[in-house]
């Protein structure tokens, strides 16, 4: 509910944005939840910085079309035109990528996570450094809670991917493994 309130507060500026406004001004409400410069400090809310523009465009499109359901984002995206979606996704890609957390993480968990990432071949689509490519997102140093939540949602198909890939990939990954994967990818250097 907290997010919803935030979203409603910040919704008006986006909807009423005049063409004269710069993208920086238009994007200011995004940072309320997604963090200054796109590095999120809000639980379960992703960092946007350095995200692949084609992936960001697909997500904004899915929010607008309600193919991906999260009410605040569905509301935010509702008035956006196709060109708006492109402008926002291109802008998101220019934000600085999130930095790895200061702590290097528990070596045992990091090793488990790394082994799982190899075994499930996350690197095939997400790139060897997890920076993503094209329609496949950057996941490196994404928030751990958001990674875990997203993997769980792909697994039970409550988050429908744009295509079916992640639903399939997650079939044999169990809860404990999801936690280790999220732990590792959030801290990967």
């Amino acid at each position: 509910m907290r997010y919803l309130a935030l979203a409603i507060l910040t919704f008006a500026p986006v909807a009423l944005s005049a063409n004269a406004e710069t993208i920086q001004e238009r994007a200011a409400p995004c940072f309320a939840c997604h963090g200054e410069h796109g590095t999120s400090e809000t639980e379960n809310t992703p960092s946007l910085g350095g995200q692949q523009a084609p992936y960001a465009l697909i997500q904004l499109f899915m929010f607008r079309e309600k193919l991906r359901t999260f009410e605040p984002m569905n509301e935010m995206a509702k008035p956006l035109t196709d060109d708006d979606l492109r402008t926002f996704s291109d802008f998101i890609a220019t934000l600085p990528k999130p930095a790895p957390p200061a702590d290097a993480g528990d070596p045992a968990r990091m090793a488990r996570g790394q082994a799982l990432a190899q075994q499930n071949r996350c690197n095939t689509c997400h790139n060897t450094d997890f920076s993503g490519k094209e329609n496949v997102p950057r996941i490196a140093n994404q928030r751990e809670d958001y990674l875990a939540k997203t993997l769980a949602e792909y697994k039970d198909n409550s988050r429908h991917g744009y295509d079916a890939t992640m639903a399939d990939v997650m079939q044999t990954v169990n809860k404990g493994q999801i936690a280790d994967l999220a732990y590792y990818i959030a801290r990967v250097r």
Partner: protein
Amino acid sequence: MIRYSFAPRSLLLAGAFFGAFTLGAAAQQPAAPPASGAAPAAAPALPPGSPLIGRPDNEAAAKLAPVAPPPIPASSDKLPLAKLKVPAGFNVEVYAAGMANARSMALGDKGTVFVGSRLVDKVYAIVNKDGKRSVKVLASGLYRPNGVAFKDGTLYIAELSQISKIDKVEDILDNPPKPTVIYDKLPKDEAHGWKFIAIGPDNKLYVPVGQPGNNVLHDADHGQIRRINLDGSGAEVYALGVRNSVGFDWNPETRQMYFTDNGRDWLSETVPEDELNRVTKAGEDFGAPFCYQGNIIDQELGWGKSCKDYTPPVGLMGPHTASLGMRFYTGSQFPKSYKNAIFVARHGSWNKTQKQGGDVAVVKLNKDGTVKSVEPFLTGFLQDNKYVGRPVDVMLLKDGSLLVSDDWNGAVYRVSYGKPKVADK
């Protein structure tokens, strides 16, 4: 690390069958069996549906992954029309645009063209009224509504795991009701779960159920084409050993069903080729996942199996080319040599370093229904190894021109023959 080893024995076998097979399909471009490099072994721990199953552990293979289209449909002026090529005497024009992820097509009695989608939730109607053409969203909130079919005023829609219908659809285009579900006894797997559907000369609706992954053993509910009555009753299995068919039609002369089937990924850059199959009797088995392209025993699952126990394809459509929608050309606008030929939309490969497909091919048949030739017909969607469009389905209009859908751009093109005659705008 898993080590992959070369498997000479199965290659020799494949080669032996291959020689015999090419005689039957003389005009095919025969692809060599896997020539060199690593033959993939079983990759443990990958889930059944994963597109990575069987991926060899090398750098070139690691670069390949399914290609997703842009989400927003291209506006008419941004379509790659100028890049598209057809044989001399043919013309290609934009028929309709602005339909995100436009996939399979069906034609209504009154000229409405229905278009399904896979990555969005919509079925579109391209409406022809008073000489003007416009696009409407006919239904939304559907789940991967890839398949559409039309018969006697009713539109049938195939979502991932159910079939529904809208009666008298062309009379209520402005205010369509929600589709009514007629059949939902279908698996819910995402992998190869989206469906092409069509109604056969026996007035039954044909519904494919793909294998739930790249190369997997599965239960009796998968890997087949079923047929059901138009009210959803009487389901029966019609064809077996079908990996993922996303297109079929019936030979107007023999009334036999022909269907495209997508071969498995990761076997090699050059094989297996996608199949064009012909069903001569109900219950035939086409081999997947044990035998591919009629002459390759699968290196993981094919042990103890023989290709001669399965019906071989009548035609090969190229490796990983993703041969999807297909129709027999029963019109009279095109030259005589196209009469009863098959047009096949090849969506184009992802599991191949040099992409292949991304075109509409024309398959000409011999009198006995075997394949005489496979040639590219509409090309240009693949530029510098990148897609600028991807054909999904083909469909005849009543005037004998051919529509081609493109899910990359969310558009439908029209191919005609003779003096450029533009369809009614």
